[in-house]
């Protein structure tokens, strides 16, 4: 879709002929994120709707204990050392960012007094700075006041390389932060930054930590801070107890800065076990009120729901399960490494083969039979509800067509039923991590490919090795020493920029960078690189959106990856729990202060 058409859609929302929600979904269907869409609307001056809660309490507390179940247990409570969403969620009980992203991608102020925008002048027109006004009368759990000093300190803490904070990404672009007064900060960027809300927003990278407790533990002393195990934040609950790998407990914060919140007196977050057991505990027995990340087959979830005690909440996000197609040769070693950028894949370089593969993935069956509501068939790399069909990309499952394409490209079936050309056979090794639905998907693809004369050898690697960053281990997904591999890229950042850099040529994963870079398919394309660079500094959200859409189309048309299903966030919620709204762009606990029980 062109920029022109995007602007027309924005105009329709402004005029009231297109609902905001529909617009956001359409943008997501084109490969953008909801926060980006929200930004596009905000730049046109369209006010965002206020968050609505079904229950408005008249006093704080009195709700008792709320129990939540994660099937990976949190292991530490410093948000800047978080190892995955389990830790981020545990920290979110106690710590808060300046603003959160709601399910539609809007910026909802938490510790900020209001969301900055072009209209209120807090976002600079040249994109070089943004000013945040902080909420007044907010206190840390130990009583000390929350001020601008804490915001500045958080930035310094994260930026210190000796701290080895994992949240450093969005803060690297900041040149300095000026403290204008006790409750105002001005952030100055190194270059024009279209997505200025990357810093300090969202639970993944945004939580603010108290200066007075962490001051003495910056840099290489950071791991010794006692506050790492006994967090002191501004959140709705105060720290009560923590057993790493097992359970986190919090009790109500009587001085919480939002009146009459939270509803519950205590929160408990237990970890460990498996996803199916967690689903049962919430939906079947009602032992728990909430469970995270239901990687469970929808068939089973539906059966559990028949008990009437709980239900499944599905929230669209940016995650996508996709198959990567190797552009290099994983079976030839060059200078001690396989899948070297110096090689070309003998058979997968033929566009006909790629197109055929794209036609052999039965996404509809994968969705219907395996993922159900938890996986939505898609053609785009970044999200697509099946209702919207982009004219550039659509998905199709057609074994006959695949056969035709291969036949006319000169790949003839041999006596063993496998197609070959010039002595090269269409035999591929297809790897993924150990995971029930993934193995089933592999089998479905294998069967379809067999019908087209392509033989797939399936390989499954245990998750913690597949996703390891160990440069010596050949089974990792960064090494990509097979022809095809499949996994879900998580989009933890609402801004697609970081997500799309995995197709740029300077991010090619190789031995000399210890396979730590993000471009695993090793695809290089000049036009893509140009578009990406342009999007980095394009301040107009609509223009920027058009650039991202073009990038997505390039990737899909060249079949660099084959998207399978979009993976929304799936949570199990007790039927008695109210307002436990989930956001695909923020933590499961982003609205914990507003949860209540009927």
């Amino acid at each position: 879709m062109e920029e022109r058409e995007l602007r027309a859609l924005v105009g329709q929302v402004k005029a009231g002929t297109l609902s905001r929600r529909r617009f956001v979904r359409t943008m997501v269907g084109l490969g953008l994120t909801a926060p980006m869409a929200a930004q596009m609307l905000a730049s046109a001056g369209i006010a965002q709707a206020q968050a609505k809660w079904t229950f408005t309490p008249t006093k704080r507390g009195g709700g008792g204990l709320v129990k939540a179940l994660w099937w990976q247990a949190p292991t530490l409570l410093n948000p800047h050392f978080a190892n995955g969403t389990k830790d981020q969620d545990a920290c979110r009980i106690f710590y808060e960012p300046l603003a959160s992203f709601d399910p539609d991608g809007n910026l909802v102020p938490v510790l900020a007094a209001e969301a900055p925008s072009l209209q209120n002048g807090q976002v600079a027109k040249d994109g070089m700075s943004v000013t945040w006004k902080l909420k007044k009368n907010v206190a840390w759990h130990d009583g000390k006041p929350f001020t601008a000093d804490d915001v500045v300190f958080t930035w310094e803490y994260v930026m210190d390389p000796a701290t080895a904070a994992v949240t450093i990404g969005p803060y690297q672009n900041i040149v300095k932060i000026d403290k204008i007064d006790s409750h105002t900060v001005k952030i100055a960027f190194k270059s024009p930054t279209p997505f200025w809300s990357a810093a300090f927003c969202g639970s993944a990278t945004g939580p603010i930590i108290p200066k007075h407790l962490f001051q003495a533990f910056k840099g290489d002393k950071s791991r010794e801070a006692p506050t790492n195990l006994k967090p002191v934040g501004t959140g709705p609950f105060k720290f009560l107890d923590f057993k790493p790998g097992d359970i986190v407990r919090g009790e109500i914060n009587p001085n919480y800065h939002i009146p009459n919140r939270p509803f519950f007196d205590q929160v408990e977050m237990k970890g460990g076990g498996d996803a199916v057991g967690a689903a049962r505990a919430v939906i079947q027995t009602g032992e728990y009120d909430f469970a995270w990340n239901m990687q469970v087959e929808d068939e089973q979830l539906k059966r559990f729901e028949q008990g009437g005690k709980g239900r499944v909440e599905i929230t669209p996000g940016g995650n996508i399960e996709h198959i990567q197609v190797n552009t290099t040769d994983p079976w030839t070693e060059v200078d001690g490494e396989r899948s070297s950028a110096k090689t070309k894949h003998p058979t997968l370089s033929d566009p006909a083969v790629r197109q055929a593969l794209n036609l052999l993935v039965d996404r509809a069956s994968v969705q219907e039979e395996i993922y159900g509501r938890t996986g939505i068939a898609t053609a785009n790399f970044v999200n697509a509800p099946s209702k919207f069909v982009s004219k550039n990309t659509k998905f199709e499952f057609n074994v006959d067509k695949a056969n035709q394409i291969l036949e006319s490209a000169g790949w003839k079936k041999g006596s063993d039923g496998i197609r070959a050309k010039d002595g090269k056979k269409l035999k591929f090794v297809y790897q993924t991590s150990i995971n029930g639905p993934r193995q089933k998907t592999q089998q479905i693809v294998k069967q379809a490919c067999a019908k087209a004369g392509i033989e797939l050898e399936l390989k499954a690697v245990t998750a913690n090795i597949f996703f390891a960053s160990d440069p010596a281990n050949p089974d990792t997904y960064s090494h990509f020493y097979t022809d095809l591999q499949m996994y879900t890229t998580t989009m933890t950042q609402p801004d697609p920029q970081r997500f799309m850099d995995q197709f740029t040529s300077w991010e090619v994963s190789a031995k000399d960078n210890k396979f730590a870079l993000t471009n695993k398919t090793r695809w290089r394309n000049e036009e893509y690189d140009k578009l990406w660079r342009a999007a980095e500094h394009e301040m107009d959200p609509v223009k920027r959106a058009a650039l991202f859409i073009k990038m997505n189309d390039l990737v899909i048309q060249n079949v660099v990856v084959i998207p399978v299903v979009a993976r929304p966030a799936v949570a199990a919620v007790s039927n008695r729990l109210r307002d436990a709204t989930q956001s695909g762009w923020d933590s499961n606990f982003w609205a914990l202060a507003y949860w209540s029980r009927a």
Partner: protein
Amino acid sequence: MARVVSETVAGKLAVATAQPRTSLWKETGRRFRRHRLAMVGSVILLGLVIAVLVGPLVWRLPINDIDFKAKLKGPSWSHPLGTDDLGQDLLARMLYGGRISLAVGIAAMLIAITIGTAVGAISGFAGGAVDHVLMRITDMFLALPGLPLLLLIVYLFRDALRKMFGPEAGIFVLIVAVIGGLRWMQVARLVRAQFLSLREKEFVESARSLGARPFRQVVRHILPNSMGPVIVAGTIDVAAAIIAESTLSFLGLGFPPDIPTWGRILFDAKDNLDFAPHWALFPGTAIFLTVLSINYIGDGLRDAFDPRKVLGR
């Protein structure tokens, strides 16, 4: 006292050892065949083995034919054992996977009890420094954490074995070696304990005083009486090995996840127990039958080799 001695084992053995060997083997075979349960066990095991070897040639439904319309159906004429959640025929999968499960189970068990019995016997009989060193090695193996060891061994040897034996056989060798290699310690300790106490018993002393050399003492007198725990360990090890293989595949270290070994089918079926119990019932029963048959065969063997046969009371 002397009268009692002459009626004891030593007395009988002293007579028996004088006879030629061939009729002893025949005698052993005859005693085995007379043991009713051992025969039942042999029949069952033979049945299972024939089924998995010949079955796939007779029942020709493919094991990975995905048919969503037939998923999770109970036993029927077209699918005698029902189907799983991808609509694949369970009978075909059980027959195919049974080859691997039975082979892994029995091979691993044999490795475990062979190594275990050897180590335990040598240790218990020789005593002294030999006993000490062997037992400390046993302790070390007992202290090793199974999982990291497994991961390491697979990581180090998988490619080499793949080249040597081919992908499937290579993994087979690896798994059998690893599972058997981590279960022999129990057998060793048990056998050693038996040897320690039996070494000093009267009938062994009698044999010694009659001039029997150590090897003879061990094989003819002590070993048959230590077989009790070994047989029990053997039967337990078969089940444990079949299940361990499935745990390994769950961790990515065993056979690829689309190979339907019995333990794997059981694992895949566990989350659908309330909805499709047939899926779990059949592999569970198969493992149970294997264990049962091995146990009865073991009982029969022990009674057959027992020089003072005591059958029932």
